[in-house]
């Protein structure tokens, strides 16, 4: 245990009967870090958060918070505050009572309670709402109060369980910025569960992508985006998602290349971690924004425009290339009619190559 780890999870397993929800999971979260647990529903991310909070009893392993073994501790003794998706405000209490409830239970002196509530209300700008009941608040205001409830507890670690998922798109992006600002000013450790990759990419210092109770990749957002460790991560992150071309490796003029339906793609500039043996079945992953259209780059591939989806700032083209459909994101001002032949350029230094069998990055 090093001291700069705020939360440390060691060999954690959780079984419900014979179902393994989490399997020997290890995770170290540094002090002041914003960690996002990302995954589709049922991947165990909320379960992991509930384990950290102490709301679920774990089957095996240990949990440390601030260097203290809290595996058997009650939630209140773990030094955590939690924000829930459905806000979970006590409906019969005013905002002020909601904020102070935990402190009253902990028998904090009234003067200290008033001070902390006032501070949280100021940070979150909810002073005018203090006398209201939760039913009289809008969704965004409710979630602010819920964050305030975690704030007044003066804790080391904040846990967010999909806090923005109940809000509409506009409020979501506003509150997202607020949470980021909050983290920058408070510098607490925050663990944030979401299924929304935009939230994950924008908020996180590091993202842990989970699938079936296993962390698939734990890295900073840029690394996850540019160098996904396996096919699942590559397909999960990015919208529209990465193009996958299934082909095999060949050698052209002593250099490795990728071949698909007779079309050869030289892999110049690709930083492979292992040798690119010819004949190996692989998947080439290229993000839609890493493909150039009619820009006169070195490698030119023939393709035809199939469908065009203008989205304002961007323009998404669906193209036919070597018998497969791929998507390409270009500037919104460049328009193409369906059926137009175009020439494509691939930036292999930004591409990803996966083994077709193990689905791991090469």
């Amino acid at each position, binding site marked *: 245990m090093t001291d700069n780890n705020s939360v440390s999870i060691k060999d954690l397993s959780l079984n419900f009967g014979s179902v393994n929800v989490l399997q020997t999971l290890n995770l170290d979260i540094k002090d002041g870090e914003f960690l996002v647990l990302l995954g589709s529903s049922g991947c165990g991310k909320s379960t992991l958060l*509930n384990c950290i909070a102490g*709301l679920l009893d774990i089957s095996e392993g240990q949990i440390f918070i601030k260097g203290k073994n809290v595996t058997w501790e009650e*939630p209140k003794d773990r030094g955590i505050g939690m924000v829930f998706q*459905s*806000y*979970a405000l006590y*409906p*019969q209490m005013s905002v002020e009572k909601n904020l102070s*409830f935990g402190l009253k*239970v902990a028998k904090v002196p009234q003067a200290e309670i008033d001070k902390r509530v006032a501070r949280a209300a100021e940070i979150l700008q909810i002073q005018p709402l203090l006398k209201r009941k939760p039913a009289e608040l809008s969704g965004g205001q409710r979630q602010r109060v819920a964050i305030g409830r975690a704030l007044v507890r003066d804790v080391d670690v904040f846990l967010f369980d999909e806090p923005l998922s109940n809000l509409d798109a506009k409020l979501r992006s506003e509150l997202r910025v607020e949470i980021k600002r909050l983290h920058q000013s408070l510098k607490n450790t925050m663990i944030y569960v979401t299924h929304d990759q935009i939230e994950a990419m924008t908020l996180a210092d590091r993202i842990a992508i989970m699938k079936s109770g296993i962390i698939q990749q734990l890295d900073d957002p840029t690394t996850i985006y540019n160098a996904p460790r396996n096919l699942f991560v590559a397909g999960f992150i990015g919208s529209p998602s990465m193009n996958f071309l299934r082909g095999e490796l060949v050698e052209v003029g002593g250099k490795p290349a990728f071949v698909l339906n007779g079309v050869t793609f030289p892999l110049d500039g690709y930083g492979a971690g292992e040798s690119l043996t010819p004949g190996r079945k692989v998947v080439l992953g290229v993000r839609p924004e890493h493909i150039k259209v009619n820009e006169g780059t070195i490698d030119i591939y023939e393709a035809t425009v199939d469908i065009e989806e203008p989205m304002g700032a961007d323009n998404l083209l669906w193209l036919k290339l070597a018998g497969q459909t791929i998507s390409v994101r270009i500037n919104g001002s460049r328009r193409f009619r369906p059926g137009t032949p175009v020439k494509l350029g691939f930036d292999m230094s930004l591409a990803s190559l996966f083994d077709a069998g193990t689905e791991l990055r090469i």
Partner: protein
Amino acid sequence: MLDPAISKTVSAAARSGSQTLAGPSGRKPRRMLSSRNIIVYGTLFVAAVYYVLPLYVMVVTSLKGMPEIRLGNIFSPPVEITFEPWVKAWAQACTGLNCDGLSRGFWNSVRITIPSTIISIAVASVNGYALANWRFKGADVFFTILIVGAFIPYQVMIYPIVIVLRELGIYGTLTGLVIVHTIFGMPILTLLFRNYFAGLPEELFKAARIDGAGFWAIYFKIMLPMALPIFVVAMILQITGIWNDFLFGVVFTRPEYYPMTVQLNNIVNSVQGVKEYNVNMAATILTGAVPLIVYFVSGRLFVRGIAAGAVKG
């Protein structure tokens, strides 16, 4: 602001537009005497008469003197209204050696109903809360056993309970009867509370735990204030159920503790002397008045309580 001249032309255009609409427009007209209405209101009327007529006969008879009753016109309103039967039923009617009317049974019933209702609801609400939120080991088995209890006919358990109460030394006392009512109210009330608490968002309970509240703090500070509608429902169920109970009242108590229902039976079914129909009717209405009043006063809360689980969030 629009120029008044322009707004005038705009509204004129809108008016002329509405005048040119051809064919059906606006609200669909409904005929009052459609066959659908006749069937619906006819059925409702018949059902209402079916239920109200006996009540009418009771009220009317209770306000007549015996000579008028002997004429046999049970549907005719009283020629001479008298409240004598009501006074007699309440204060003078005889059961066995006692001739102090139903009033004694009324107070016995009050002394049985109030503690039984309070204790059973208090225990069942905690049961339901524990079963819904604190998933202890064996909770499902416990709950199943409790629910099975609700389906066993009471009559089967009477003799064993008599023995148990005798051994405890409380057979024939009000305490014993209160305990019996509390136990028999438990399955249905626990089910009621468990389902209500299970319907509340689970995250609320988690939030309270993170705030450091324990079993009782969460129950009293968070759950109880949210469960008021279901408490009203439980209260109505228990008050009417216990007040209307006859079997337990006659089996588990002594004559001086007989509840109102048992005493009513003894008055109405006494075989000696003249049958005083007017007194019997008045006594019956008096006995049924309490549940009736409870319904009228809290009927609206009752419906709200049943529907509340669906919309609270």
